[in-house]
């Protein structure tokens, strides 16, 4: 994302906020280390007089993280961010928030395609989904309280691509994809390039609203494995969570709890709202899987350094710097 913004000449300055070092080469992005809830965000906003915040730090899968941590990062982090953006005298004019299609859940009662205003049917049973719902509720309130701001929420489907590491990509890389015996649901993916491009598109064109972001089309779970050259690892359809537990424990497969219902019923989100606003995708759902597979094949043949760009763990917030840093404004 930082690289994309660096390429945009209308962006004067970029500031990244994160808990770790940036993992990609950056030229004109300044970087500040912060804690996970960015309590220092308020001060930074005031000092740098930024006018745009792109909030990509939301965790969109629950692997390796406790429910409490999920809540801290997603909900408390967003609270702090929105507080900084909406503070009286704040220079912020635009906020872009990353969300996830996990907010829709997956149940047998679902329509084949979720539009942005379609209600979820599945009961909220996972911490991740609960936190996403809370975050979007906070954003909705924020919009009502701050009508002068441009606020965009992007709900991303599962991401696959050349560099990104996700629970699904780990399984595909190991050539072992867990599945639920007897079920072959249709799923969607978004390619990681399209993720960055869509964030950049909405930021650059200042487009308010909530948008589903996913590659066109759906494909069967078994076909995902087939494209990536992976074998399916069937889990019992009854008591799936417990059946997966021993394998999850020894690290053979990764099945974040919010994926269990997706592996049973699949999920599709309608993307026409973003497309109608002028965005063009470069990859379909199957294309995203193929993009990952080609990169993976190369990695296997050539081997070697693989930074494993984990964008969920990076906090990248890019601020557009207005004419001058206001010194002495820190209060």
């Amino acid at each position, binding site marked *: 994302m930082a690289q994309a913004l660096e390429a945009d000449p209308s962006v004067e300055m970029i500031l990244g906020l994160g808990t770790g070092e940036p993992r990609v080469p950056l030229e004109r992005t300044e970087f500040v280390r912060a804690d996970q809830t960015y309590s220092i965000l308020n001060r930074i906003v005031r000092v740098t007089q930024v006018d745009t915040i792109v909030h990509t730090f939301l965790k969109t899968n629950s692997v390796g993280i406790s429910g409490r941590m999920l809540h801290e990062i997603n909900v408390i982090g967003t609270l702090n961010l929105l507080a900084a953006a909406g503070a009286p005298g704040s220079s912020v004019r635009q906020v872009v928030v990353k969300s996830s299609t996990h907010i829709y859940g997956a149940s*047998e*009662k*679902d*329509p*084949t*395609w979720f*539009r942005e205003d*379609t209600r979820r049917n599945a009961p909220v049973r996972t911490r991740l989904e609960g936190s996403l719902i809370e975050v979007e509720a906070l954003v909705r309130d924020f919009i009502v309280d701050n009508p002068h701001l441009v606020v965009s929420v992007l709900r991303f489907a599962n991401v696959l691509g050349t560099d990104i590491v996700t629970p699904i990509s780990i399984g595909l890389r190991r050539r072992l994809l867990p599945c*639920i*015996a*007897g*079920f*072959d649901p*249709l799923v969607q993916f978004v390619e990681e390039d399209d993720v960055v491009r869509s964030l950049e*598109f909405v930021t650059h*064109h*200042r*487009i*308010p*609203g909530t948008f589903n972001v996913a590659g*066109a*089309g*759906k*494909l*069967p779970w078994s*076909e995902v494995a*087939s*494209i990536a050259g992976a074998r399916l690892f069937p889990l019992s*359809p009854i008591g799936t969570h417990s059946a997966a537990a021993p394998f999850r424990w020894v690290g053979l497969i990764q099945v974040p709890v919010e994926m269990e219902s997706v592996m049973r*019923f699949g999920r*599709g989100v309608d993307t026409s*709202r973003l497309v*109608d*606003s*002028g*965005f*063009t*995708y*470069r*990859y*379909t759902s*199957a*294309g995203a*899987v*193929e993009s990952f597979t080609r990169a993976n094949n190369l990695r296997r043949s050539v081997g070697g350094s693989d930074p494993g760009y984990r964008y969920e763990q990076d906090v990248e917030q890019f601020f557009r710097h207005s004419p001058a840093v206001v010194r002495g404004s820190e209060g």
Partner: protein
Amino acid sequence: MPSALPVVAPHEEIPPLSDPRRSDVDEWGRSEHIRSITRRLYDPIYKYWFRVEWEGLEKIPTTGGALMVANHAGAIPSDAPAIMHGIEKELGRPVYGMADYFFRTVPVVGTLWARTGGLPAHPDNAYRLLHDQGQLALVFPEGTKGPSKTYSDRYRLRRFGRGGFVEIAMRSGVPVIPIAVVGAEESMPILFRMNGLAKTLNLPYFPVTANDFVFGPILGKVAYFPVKMKFRVLDPVTFDVDPGLERYSKSRVMDEAEQIRAKLQDTIHDMLRERRSVWFG
């Protein structure tokens, strides 16, 4: 659709995206490849066991969407596959069978149901299928009330719900085409139901059929009696309303649904009057 979104001029012409699919499974889960295999397997049953006869098949359009509705019967209904098979075979176009979302929860069978054109009867699905894609959809307005009837209630059409199918057809701007079915009732007639067992197994009903007594309890759930099946297609029903509206007059919808139900009921009685034998027509 209202659009308050700022619209950005789309980028220059880019070539169509490559979609590296390996199977022909469409967005609804249907695979023409798998469907043609099941048609080949089912064809002997269609031709020799049920000896299906159609009347009025020409009333079903060869292009464009239509919502076909039929009466529903048989403990495990035999009418849906037969209707879908007949239309796909004679007209050469796919038929999507809309049924209860319950099927999605069943392993293996649920997946096969989807691959052969089954999908849940959600209004959003119906609108997209009929209006956006102009496909043929088959729905049974009696729902599970039809097949769960006992033999003594045979051919007495249950209430067509709240007429949801009419509203779907109105909104999608497609006609409703009623199809009267004779024969399914006797293919697997229910003698009585076991409600306790149904609850335990999480099924809408648990039937005990004459087939169970003839073929045994296990085989009886898959072996149908060789009844003669007859389908009569009635004239398409169109509604002089605007498509795409949020709401339609409830009373108008229920009226139309009841009229269609009555027409089907009359046609069925006609066909039964003409029928001389359950097995030979």
